[in-house]
C-alpha cells in the first residue's frame, strides 16, 4: 500500500472544517448569548496546552498513526482496550454529526422525507469521500474551507443592515462559573474533537511541524466561530439566540437586500453539508484505521463501508427526539473527557518516559 501524504495546508483546512462543523447552523453554545464570545476565547486558550500535547505525540513518533503509537507503548492488551475506546468515540462522533444533519434537514426543509433516507444519502457521499483516501480528503478540505469562508464573509456583509451591536451589552453579565462551564463545553465540542486527527498522523509529511499545524488550525477555526457568534448575536438579539435551535440559519433568513437578495439561507445549508461531510469522513477514517490495527488488516479502506453502516444505524437509534439531542450537548463535554484528554495524556506521558530511557 503506497503511503498517502497530505500537505500542512490541507491538514489545516480539514482541521478548520472539522472545528467549524456543527456550529455552522447550531451557533456556538448559545446559552450565554452575549457573553459566548468570552467563553470562546477562554476555550481557545484552554485548548492550546492540549493541542501541544497532541502535536508532541506526533513529533515523538513521526510517520506513525495514533493507534500504532498506542500499540508500541502500552503492550498488547491495554492498547487493544484503548483502541476500542478510540474507535467508539470516532464512530459516536460520526453518528452525532450525521444525526444533527438529518434533524436539521427534517425541521428546515424535508418535512415528509423519512429520516433514514436523509441519513443514507449523506452516508453514501461520506463513504465515497473517505474511500477515495486521505489525499482526496485533504484536497477536498481546501475547497470546503474556501467555500465556507467565502459564504461566511458574504452573509456577514449582507447582514450589516440588520446588525445591532447594543445586543452585546451588558458584557460579563453572567457569573464566572457559568462562563467557565460554557467555555468547557466549547472546549470539548468542537475544539478537542480534533484528537481524531491523530489517527491520520502517518499521512502528515515529515517536513511539517505538527505544532504549527494544530495551532494554526485551532486559531483559524476559533476566528471563524467568533465571527459566527458576532453575526448571530448582533442580528438576532439575546432572547432569540437563546431560544433558537439553529441561530445561524435564522440569522441568514433575515437577510434582505433591497427586496431582491433574499432567502439566501440555502448557503448555510450548503455550508453544513460540506462541513458535515468532511467531519463524518474524518470520523470514518479514524474509526476504520482503528479497526485495521485491532484486527491486523492491511488496508483501512475495506473497513469503511461496514463502519459507515454501523454509524448509520447508531445515528437512527441514538435519540428519541430533537430535545434529547440538544440536552446531550452539556453531558457530551463530560462524556468526552476520557477520549479527548485522559487517553492522549496517558499516551503522551508514557511516550515521554520511554523516549527519555532511550
Amino acid at each position, binding site marked *: 500500500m503506497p503511503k498517502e501524504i497530505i500537505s500542512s495546508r490541507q491538514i489545516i483546512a480539514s482541521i478548520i472544517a472539522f472545528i467549524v462543523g456543527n456550529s455552522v447552523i447550531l451557533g456556538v453554545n448559545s446559552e450565554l448569548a452575549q457573553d459566548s464570545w468570552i467563553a470562546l476565547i477562554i476555550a481557545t486558550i484552554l485548548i492550546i496546552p492540549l493541542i501541544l500535547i497532541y502535536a508532541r505525540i506526533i513529533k515523538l513518533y513521526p510517520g506513525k498513526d495514533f493507534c500504532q503509537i498506542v500499540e508500541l507503548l502500552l503492550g498488547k492488551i491495554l492498547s487493544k482496550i484503548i483502541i476500542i475506546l478510540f474507535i467508539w468515540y470516532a464512530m459516536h462522533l460520526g453518528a452525532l454529526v450525521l444525526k444533527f444533519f438529518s434533524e436539521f434537514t427534517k425541521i428546515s*426543509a424535508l418535512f*415528509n422525507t423519512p429520516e433514514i433516507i436523509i441519513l443514507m444519502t449523506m452516508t453514501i457521499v461520506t463513504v465515497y469521500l473517505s474511500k477515495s483516501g486521505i489525499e482526496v480528503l485533504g484536497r477536498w478540505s481546501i475547497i470546503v474551507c474556501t467555500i465556507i469562508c467565502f459564504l461566511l464573509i458574504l452573509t456577514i456583509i449582507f447582514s450589516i443592515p440588520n446588525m445591532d451591536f447594543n445586543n452585546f451589552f*451588558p458584557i460579563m*453579565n453572567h457569573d464566572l462559573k457559568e462562563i467557565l462551564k460554557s467555555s468547557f463545553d466549547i472546549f470539548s465540542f468542537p475544539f478537542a474533537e480534533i484528537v481524531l486527527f491523530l489517527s491520520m498522523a502517518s499521512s502528515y509529511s515529515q517536513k511539517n511541524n505538527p505544532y504549527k499545524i494544530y495551532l494554526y488550525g485551532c486559531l483559524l477555526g476559533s476566528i471563524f466561530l467568533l465571527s459566527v457568534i458576532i453575526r448571530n448575536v448582533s442580528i438576532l*438579539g439575546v432572547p432569540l439566540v437563546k431560544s433558537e435551535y439553529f441561530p445561524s440559519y435564522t440569522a441568514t433568513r*433575515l437577510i434582505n437586500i433591497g427586496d431582491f437578495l433574499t432567502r439566501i439561507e440555502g448557503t448555510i445549508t450548503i455550508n453544513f453539508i460540506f462541513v458535515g461531510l468532511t467531519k463524518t469522513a474524518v470520523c470514518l477514517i479514524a474509526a476504520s484505521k482503528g479497526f485495521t490495527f485491532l484486527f491486523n488488516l492491511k488496508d483501512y479502506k475495506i473497513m469503511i463501508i461496514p463502519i459507515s453502516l454501523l454509524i448509520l444505524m447508531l445515528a437512527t437509534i441514538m435519540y428519541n427526539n430533537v430535545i434529547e439531542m440538544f440536552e446531550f450537548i452539556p453531558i457530551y463535554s463530560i462524556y468526552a473527557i476520557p477520549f479527548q484528554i485522559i487517553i492522549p495524556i496517558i499516551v503522551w506521558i508514557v511516550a515521554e518516559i520511554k523516549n527519555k530511557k532511550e
Partner: protein
Amino acid sequence: MIKKIITIIYLLFFSLLLSGCWDYTSLDEITIVSGMAIDQSEDKKGYHVSLEIFDTTESNKEKIKTAIIESNGITLFDAIRNAKKKITNKLYFANIAVIIVSEQVAKEKNIGEIIDWYLRDAEHRETLSFVISKEKTAKDLLNTKSSTNNAIGLLIKEIVTEDQTVTISVIHNEAYKIYNILNQKKESLVLPAFRVTTNNNEKAVEADGLAIFKNGKLIDFIDDDKSKYILFANNKVKGGILTIKKDNNIDNISLEITNSKTKTSFTYKNNQLKFFINIKTNVIVGEYGINDEIPYKQITKLEKIAANKLNKEVTEIIKYVQEKYNSDIFGFSTIIYRKDPKLWKKLKKDWDKIFKNIEVEVKSEVKIINTSYIK
C-alpha cells in the same frame, strides 16, 4: 464488458431513485397566502382567521387577484388547517407579509402566543409584520380596496416598512424583534394600528398611530399626531415632516427631516432615576408659507422654534405614557440593563412604580441644512 453492464444497471437504478423528491410540491399544488387576519371566534373560545390568498384560478396579466378564506379553530394552527376544508390546495405561508390582529384578541390574549406559533413553523419567515386593527374585526381591513396594490397584505407591509422614512407615524417591528421585546426585561411592545377610511368612495386601509401593549396585552391606542414624538423618543425617525408655526396660530412651515438621531442616557442619584433624551435632527425647509425669501437671521429662529416644539411634545408624550399607561414603550429598562446590570437588578422588583416617577429631560437640536431651491 461485465463492468460496463453493471455500471449501466447501477445508473438505471439510481436514476429511478434520485429523480424524485419526497417533499416535492409544485406551484399548482399550493395556495399562496399574502395576509392574515386573526379574530376571536363567535363562541369566544377559539380563533377565527381570515386568509388573503392569491387567486390563480384565471390568468390575468394586468392585475393580481386576491380572495379571502375564513375558518375557525380552537388554536391558531388548528384554524389554519381547517381552512383546507374549503379549498383544494394546501396553504403556503412563506410569502405572508402581514398578520392583522383584532383589538379584542390583542386585549384578551397575550400576543406572545401568536408569535410563538409563528416563529415555530419552518415555513414562516421571521421578517413578517404585525399590525393591530382598530376596526371591530381584523377581517374588515382585508375587505378593503386599494388603488395601488391589490393584495392588502402586501400593501400594509409596504406602508409599515416605509413609514419611518416618509410619514413617521408608526413603529415597525418584525416578528423576531417582537419576540425579543416581549422577552427582554420589562420593555413594552408597540405595534402599528390600522383603520378603515373611505378613499374616493371606496373603503381603504390607513395607518393610524400606535397600539400600546403592556405585558404582551393591548391596553390602548395612541393617535397619529402624538405617535410621531414616540418615534423621536425611540430613535426611530429616519425622515418625515415636522410642522412648526412662526407667528400665526396655525402651523404653516414644513421642515423635511433628512436624518435624526436620539441618544438616551440616565443618571441614578439619591434613589431618583433621571433620563436625558438628546435629539439631533437635520431638516430642510420644504414649505415656508409666506411667499418671500427666508432672511438669514430667521434660520436660527426657526431652528429654535422647531427644537422647542420637539422638546415640548416629546416631554409631554413621555409624561402621558408614564401616567396613563405606565408601560415602558421607550425601552428605558433595557437601557438601564445594558449600561448598568447591577442597578437593574436592584430596580427590577418595583419597576412599575419606578417607571411612573422617572424624570425625563429632553434636549433637542434642530439644524436647518438648506432651504431647497428657493432662498
